[in-house]
Structure formats: structure tokens, C-alpha cells
């Protein structure tokens, strides 16, 4: 009574269920990036251990949970620096980073220049509230 295709179907269903949980983690990062998130809390939210979440997330999306979280924060930070009259430190906290040093390092890595230089450049080209962000 135990046909091999049933077993395969069950395995496949479990795999898709796991992927859907990872999607919920990724969506939660998109939604709550500005809050003090960490991998442990994200893992608890989908009933995985931090180790399991880290491993499966990387397998599914090709990068770590932390890298995805920081990418969201830096992307938002770049938008805020381009548009708003906020200091680099204010932007750092506004996007959920608690350490200006880490923020600056991460920003430089992803954007190609430090946040202060990026902000100066925005001011030079006259971005402001109505200006367009180059992407």
C-alpha cells in the first residue's frame, strides 16, 4: 500500500512548506527592517532554530538572513539620505541599525561610497524632496 510516489509527494509538500516559511521570514524583514530584528527572533517566528533558519535561508535565497536584512536597511537609508534633510546618524537609527560604525561599513560596501559622501552628492545635484533618486 506504500507507493513510492506518495512518499515523494510528501517530501515535496514538506519542502514547499519549508520554503513558504522562509518566504514569511523574508517578507517580515521587508516589513519590519526598521525594528531591532535578529536571526533568533526571526527563527522563533517560524518555529525553526537560528541554525536551521540560517542554513535553509541561504540555500533558498543564496545569501544570509543578516545580509538580506542589511541590504533592505541600506537601500532604505540611501533613499532617505537622497531625499530627506536627515543626518547620517539619524538615518542609521531610522532604518533600524544600532551601530553607526557597522551602518557606515555596510553602506559603503553596498553603495560604493560612505553615507556622508552619498549625502553630499545628493545635496550637490539638488535632489531634495522632489528630486529623483538615481536608483
Amino acid at each position: 500500500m506504500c507507493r513510492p510516489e506518495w512518499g515523494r509527494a510528501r517530501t515535496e509538500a514538506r519542502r514547499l512548506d519549508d520554503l513558504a516559511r522562509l518566504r514569511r521570514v523574508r517578507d517580515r524583514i521587508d516589513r519590519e527592517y526598521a525594528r531591532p530584528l535578529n536571526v533568533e527572533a526571526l527563527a522563533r517566528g517560524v518555529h525553526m532554530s537560528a541554525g536551521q533558519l540560517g542554513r535553509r535561508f541561504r540555500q533558498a535565497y543564496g545569501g544570509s538572513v543578516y545580509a538580506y536584512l542589511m541590504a533592505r536597511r541600506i537601500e532604505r537609508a540611501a533613499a532617505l539620505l537622497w531625499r530627506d534633510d536627515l543626518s547620517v546618524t539619524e538615518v542609521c537609527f531610522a532604518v533600524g541599525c544600532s551601530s553607526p560604525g557597522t551602518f557606515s561599513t555596510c553602506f559603503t560596501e553596498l553603495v560604493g561610497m560612505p553615507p556622508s559622501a552619498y549625502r553630499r552628492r545628493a545635496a550637490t545635484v539638488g535632489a531634495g524632496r522632489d528630486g529623483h533618486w538615481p536608483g
Partner: protein
Amino acid sequence: MDITIHTSVLPHDDPDTSLAFYRDVLGFEVRSDVGQGKMRWITVGPAGQPDTCILLAPPFADPGITDDERRVISEMMAKGTYGWILLATRNLAETFEKVQAHDVEVVQEPTEQPYGIRDCAFRDPAGNMVRIQEVG
């Protein structure tokens, strides 16, 4: 030439839950519903706009899709990297509140985007990204 954009297609993996999302959460009317089981083609759209439709379709109906492709598509849908659609509303805050009042997955609260729009985002039950932007 007089061509309009009439129907966009999104995949479902459970026709009833997808139908419930577009009908009960987004408030769309159901224009047709054919097939049975997982093989259902459901056309929905906003009331008063009969020329704008979304077809909720089974992703593997084409017999030319191989087992490997089927697996990849299933996984991408579950991961949330497959289907997406951009909708619009005149009142984003109100729309967001109404949608959020249901049991739905919110991806993004209303946010001013650097490319000049204000939008929010949800997941439909099949893992498709549904972005809603504000238009004047």
C-alpha cells in the same frame, strides 16, 4: 490599431484560497470560473471595470512543462520569487487598512518610494507579490 491590456495571469496552487483573497479581501468580482479540482481558471476583476481582469490559473496546465520545470516553478512560488502584479488605488491608506483587516501577509506598509511613488505590498495565498500604489 486599438489594443487594450485586458487580462493578466497569476498562478494559483489552491484555487479556493486564491479566489477568497481576490474576491473577499481585494473585493473583486468573479467573472468566470471554469474547470475543477486544481485545474481551475478563475477570472476576477474590479467592479465597474469589465475590461481589466486577472486570470487565476493553474501553473502546470501546459503539458510541455517538464517535471523539473514543475518543481522549480513550485519552489519559486513557495519562495515568493515567481508571480507579481502591480495594482493601484486612489486612497492607499484606506485600501491598506481594509486589506490588512483580513488574515493576510503584509509585506510592506504604505511607503514613499525613492522612484516617486507611494505603495504597499501583500502576498496572495499562492505566494505572488501584490503591490498596490497610489494614483491621483
